[in-house]
């Protein structure tokens, strides 16, 4: 069970935040040369696709390549997790060598997902650099990892969860903060 505590971003808010992130990514990588976005399953993928579209529109450039990353096989809790996570395919339809990769995820929390994602990307080749863009940074890091492009920083308590909903996956665009009322605050894959 979860209780709604606060709506953080609504539909228009999300559009504005993504537009700003697109500009920030472009500022760090003018001209989109060598740029590639990689979305982390599940909700990083539609975010990456939207950002890629925004970037090529702003710059009036060719399409920015987008990859899809499934980090399941790189998780550090596989042998201890309560549930066996379902493996899905990673699709990186471009050569990663010497690219400026921007990893895209919805929520930055412990940093373990990003650690796994970096390891996964390096198995595809050696990019020039990897940067990280997230919609929400909610703190509580367990790894020395930080975001480069951040939609919104949020101060949260343990036991609270950030739910990012996107129309491609959930039928609507919003970000809400909820309080978990179950006995466990185990972070489930949503």
């Amino acid at each position: 069970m979860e209780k709604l505590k606060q709506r953080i971003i609504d539909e228009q808010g999300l559009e504005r935040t993504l537009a700003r992130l697109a500009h920030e990514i472009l500022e760090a990588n003018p001209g989109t040369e060598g740029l590639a976005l990689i979305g982390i399953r599940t909700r990083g993928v539609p975010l990456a696709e939207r950002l890629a579209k925004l970037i090529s529109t702003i710059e009036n450039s060719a399409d920015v390549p987008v990859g899809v990353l499934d980090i399941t096989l790189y998780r550090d809790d596989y042998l201890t997790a309560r549930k066996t996570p379902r493996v899905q395919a990673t699709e990186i339809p471009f050569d990663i060598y010497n690219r400026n990769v921007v990893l895209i995820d919805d929520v930055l929390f412990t940093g373990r997902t990003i650690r796994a994602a970096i390891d996964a990307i390096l198995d595809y080749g050696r990019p020039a650099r990897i940067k990280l863009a997230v919609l929400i940074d909610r703190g509580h890091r367990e790894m020395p990892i930080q975001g480069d492009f951040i939609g919104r920083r949020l101060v949260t308590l343990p036991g609270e969860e950030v739910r990012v909903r996107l129309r491609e996956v959930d039928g609507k665009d919003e970000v809400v903060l909820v309080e978990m009322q179950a006995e466990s605050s185990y972070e489930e894959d949503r």
Partner: protein
Amino acid sequence: MNKIRFNHLLGLEGLSSEVITEILDSAEAFLKVLSRPIPRVPSLRGVTVANLFFESSTRTRISFELAEKRLSADVVNFTASSSSMNKGETILDTARNIEAMKVDVVVIRHFAQGSPHFLADRVNAAVINAGDGSHEHPTQALLDIMTIRRKTGDLKGLKVLILGDIAHSRVARSNIYGLLTMGVNVKICGPSTLIPREIESMGIEVTHDLEEGLDWCDVVNVLRIQLERQNEGLIPSLREYQRSFGLTRNHLERVGGEKIIMHPGPMNRGVEIDSDVADGPGSVILSQVTHGVAVRMAVLYLISGREQSIE
């Protein structure tokens, strides 16, 4: 959420279509891993797998070993020629010793039917059947089904002809269980001495006419004919067998239409299958080998989780 119990893989008999689909879907992801510059993932770091091959095997043993290594598991191998089996040790003692060495997964190939089941009841490790006598060879059937599904997109209503020595074939048995579960129509073809009597009670049609079978099917799975069958008097001679049941280009041309050609290997070229069929259009025999590694990675991955329930 799909709760799946999956502690051992002993056979495809009784395995639900949900579990089979889960394995095949996961195998697709592993197939992608295999085509990367670095075809290895760290998922099974810390997991130890023992490959116990009491019966000789090249392809299956290498395929399992490669799958284990691609998942970063630690691997130990026991093969018939080098193991203490030659010194008179029983399979149970071998298993207990392996257990004492803290092995998490046991992959076993044995000439006696039911030996993986025997082990599974007595050790804590997860047991994967890599072929037990003429009983089952589940990972071979899973890779066959994966190959068919990748080629056709959908399994339901498809027609598969299994050709050859059905009675002694664990590949045939596992294929029949798996294919029927997945809604595939199965027909078998071979000399009546090599077809088990109870087969028609499983709802499977039998034909002794190769071209009739070919005309009916979308896929032909050609089984290896063991040379020993000749000495047992079950077939008059290999030449005689080839004349009635050997798959040739002539047969395929007479029947017409596109057929998918499969063979679990190793092939007796010129006996059960001609070279221009094995290497010709429609043959997916080498894809089967590639898919074998992916399917075995999926099975090893799913079996190694702490609780095999899948979200």
